[in-house]
């Protein structure tokens, strides 16, 4: 995965919006919305993240990640008055994504960015969801029949439970080393109760004349921190099969809490 921002991803594409419901921030005189990349930048405690590279959790447990993917949904921008408004997510050609859902995959640099159709202006922050909403336009997207959906909600996207009508929201797999023994770990986190809504409050400005992407840093080390005790279990070294019940289990609950409240995600100023 490349962490540097390719020039192409900074390209802002003019689109003929203005009547499509895209909210316009207060004070903006622009009459046309533009496509702005929303880029996710995974790191481990400041170090660039790469699949299969060796890292260490805050508990001192060495680990490698072989798979990392998750759904992004319900993106909103918060304007200078504090009002949040939904953002239309698009592909690089400006086509709106079905249900506003995008899959971020660590094995695909292309997937690390998705495009927001927004107006230039000043914003206070961004809200987004991690997972597939249980209620959306179709009311039950998370529990719908995956065979009717295109990528990334299709059956073959490797995120549909199958045995349960629902999607894996966040998937991380790899190995950890405890007492010189390599152990595999795999966390497939889902279920409506684990849908994460994250609000990142860092002001930023989108200018038509000085394009930039909106960058969200994702610190994977913070995933494995106990939310109540920074020295206690659970951590990757102690994770047992009993912690992986159904759609996650206790450690997945901790990961979910970390995504909600800890510094897993941060908005780069």
């Amino acid at each position: 995965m490349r962490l540097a921002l390719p020039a192409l991803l900074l390209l802002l594409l003019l689109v003929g919006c203005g009547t499509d419901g895209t909210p316009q921030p207060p004070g903006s005189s622009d009459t046309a919305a533009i496509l702005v990349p929303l880029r996710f930048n995974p790191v481990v405690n400041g170090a660039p993240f790469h699949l299969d590279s060796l890292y260490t959790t805050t508990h001192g447990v060495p680990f490698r990640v072989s798979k990392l993917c998750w759904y992004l949904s319900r993106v909103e921008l918060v304007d200078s008055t504090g009002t949040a408004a939904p953002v239309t997510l698009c592909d690089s050609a400006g086509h709106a994504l079905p249900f506003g859902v995008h899959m971020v995959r660590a094995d695909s640099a292309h997937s690390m960015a998705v495009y927001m159709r927004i107006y230039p202006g000043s914003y206070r922050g961004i809200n987004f969801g991690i997972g597939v909403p249980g209620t959306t336009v179709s009311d039950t997207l998370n529990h719908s029949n995956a065979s009717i959906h295109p990528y990334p909600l299709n059956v073959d996207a490797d995120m549909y439970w199958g045995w349960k009508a629902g999607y894996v929201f966040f998937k991380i797999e790899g190995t950890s080393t405890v007492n010189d023994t390599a152990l595999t770990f795999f966390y497939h986190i889902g279920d409506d109760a684990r849908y994460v809504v994250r609000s990142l409050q860092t002001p930023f400005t989108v200018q038509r004349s000085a394009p930039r992407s909106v960058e969200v840093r994702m610190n994977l080390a913070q995933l494995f921190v106990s939310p109540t005790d920074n020295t206690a279990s659970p951590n990757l070294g102690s994770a047992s099969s009993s912690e992986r019940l159904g759609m996650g289990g206790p450690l997945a609950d901790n990961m979910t809490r970390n995504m909600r409240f800890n510094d897993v995600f941060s908005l780069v100023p």
Partner: protein
Amino acid sequence: MRASLLSLLLLLPLLNGCGAGESGPQPEPLILIPAGFPAMPTPASNQFTPERIALGKRLFYDTQLSRTREVSCGSCHLADRGFADPQQTSAGVEGRRGERNAPTLANLAWNTSFFWDGGVPTLEQQAIVPIINPLEMDMTMTELVARLQTDPTYPEQFRAAYGDAPNPDLVTRALAAFVRTLVSGNSRYDRFNRGDRSALTPQEQKGMEMFFNEKADCFHCHVGFNLTNNGFANNGIFPTYPDSGRARVTENPRDRGRFKVPTLRNVALTAPYMHNGGIATLEEVVERYNRGGVHPSADAQIHPLNLTAEEIAAIVAFLGALTDEEFIHNPAHRP
């Protein structure tokens, strides 16, 4: 079930192109709903047509659905076995073994959830799982659709059934349409209920009486026209449950060891029994229930029954009377 309807079978009014007041020969009904059964729920997007049922049947018995072209749905759901599998766990591609016993497909049209842990709410969604399960067909929808689209006859058959080329949605809809036709409701037990007092032997009648009384207590779970409450229960038969059962779906530890209460229709043909296929005979099943639960989280109604050997034999005989020979031998269900 104490229905005493006179008619043997009611005709489900799924008539094609049959306008009100239209005269002339009546079309053949697409499916027969047994007397005493409720109306069959079918999704608006997947109403029966002959073309859809035929397509679903072809897919059901087609080994192209598996990656290696070794197994079809019909490989593990055998008509002679009440559309269950005599193996404890079924063999998928390359001999891979599944994790649970393949259940009967009889009367799934009325089921409210699917699989032993009930994680899937519709037959259409259920159809996805064996196709993509690495232990069963180990297929991707992408590859399956590619095979169907390049088949000499499938594309035309899909268009005739659904007006479109093969795609994942239509595969699952067609399979569900066929499985919904697997209706079983003409066992000797059913005929007895409809008034044929000679349909059951005295021993079977004794067994039926036991089945529905408080002593044997079978009917609290195996109730209604399909002999299931569609609920989930820990029957306490096994001392431990390595398979988390319903808890996999709910993540509630109290649901560990709870599994879907299956229909008992054609149960004499569907051995081995339980979610893991761990009990070989009906006699052993009833004897285990007679001893009461051995698991600490067994449901409250599981308790020693104090049945005599004669009563156990009668119950087993009654369960044998739930076999529906017409269902088993129906050529419409077979390849």
